[in-house]
């Protein structure tokens, strides 16, 4: 986990771009859809960043919403110990049950259809 997000350095230090900040752009293709990362841009402030984002990611009416976020505000979490722990977590997922369940269902059906199961 790192504070300051992916590649926390702002723009190239010094030089003519030192007053610019990196903004990450997320876009939504249709109402209700997920916000998907599009790319990033350099801008001196949020207002211009929004204009650049519109020009680069909304020019063709391909987006209904944009999120323009300073990269420094993103907290990047990719630690596998947190996200992909090596323990067996199959009990949390459908796949953890799919292997045994067919056999158990077949057995239960067979039992239900058997002679002593007809309630007589």
């Amino acid at each position, binding site marked *: 986990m790192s504070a300051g997000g992916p590649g926390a350095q702002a723009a*190239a230090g010094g030089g*003519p771009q030192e007053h610019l900040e990196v903004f990450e752009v997320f876009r939504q293709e249709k109402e209700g859809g997920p916000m998907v990362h599009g790319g*990033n841009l350099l801008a*001196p402030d949020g207002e211009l960043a929004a204009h650049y984002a519109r020009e680069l990611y909304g020019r063709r009416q391909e987006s209904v919403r944009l999120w323009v976020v300073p990269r420094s505000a993103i907290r990047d979490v990719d630690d596998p110990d947190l996200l992909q722990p090596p323990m067996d977590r199959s009990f949390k997922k459908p796949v953890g049950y799919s292997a045994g369940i067919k056999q158990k269902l077949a057995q239960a059906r067979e039992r239900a259809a058997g002679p002593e199961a007809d309630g007589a």
Partner: protein
Amino acid sequence: MNDPARLQAFNRHVASGGKVEPGDWMPEEYRKAVGRFVEMHANSELMGVLPEREWILRAPTLRRKLALTAKVQDEVGHAQLLYRVAEDLGKPREAMLADLLAGRTKFHNVFHYPTRSWADVGIIAWLVDAAAIVAQQALRESSYAPYGRTMKKICWEESVHIMHGRDVVLTLVNGTARQRALVQDALDRWWGPLMQMHGPRTDPAKDRDLAWRIKNKDNETLRQEFLNVYVPRIREIGLEIPDPELRQDRETGRWHYAEPDWRELYAVVTGHGPKSAERLAFRQLNYEQTQWVRDTVLAAPEVAA
């Protein structure tokens, strides 16, 4: 920094289809290789609008003018996106533009040639963009994830350009004999550069960009894919491809063709093409004329009293 175990793990990761994000650790050589690759791509998008731009004022109808203007705007937009991807790897945009203008970095061979008639605009948008999209579609799977994501957006826009180009060409071939002749003449001139565009056959085993999956297909594979789809599409509308050796092997499906002029390719991309100097001079002029915009935007913020 490059300790061998870390490097080995990185190589394994990308070789097995793993992706790299900007904040991830990567070997310096990988960072440089991706940067160089994307920078050249960005340069090509930026310079690629100049041959087409010349035809905006001469477009035959208002709709064509709008479409061509939108295409030029798209390509500059692609340059913006790609320079940003390259910039994120460490080289500032100003340095990339300075290197381009000084001829220290390259752009694609096809953008060093003149556009002689409106038919050239059709052939460029249809076939140059088609040859490019074959490569770009493969780049969507690049190991450098921001590049791959950017290519998805770019491919989507390029597919519109190809339709626009094909529509221009079809309109012309359905027109007068003189219009058909214009298209054939454009194809005759563009075929050589098109065949050179993907570059000479290389040994995939020696290509580090392939090993790192910065790109996923070698030059000859891309050229074969282009020929496979586009030779039939060119021939079915009555155009003749100016290569008497061009034929497809029935058994292997591979295309045989006259050896492209690699010396021409090398001369052109090193700045000795028919329009290289003129286009760079125009870009330089444009750069100077827009300096005031950069000065304004890049100036230190003024604190209100």
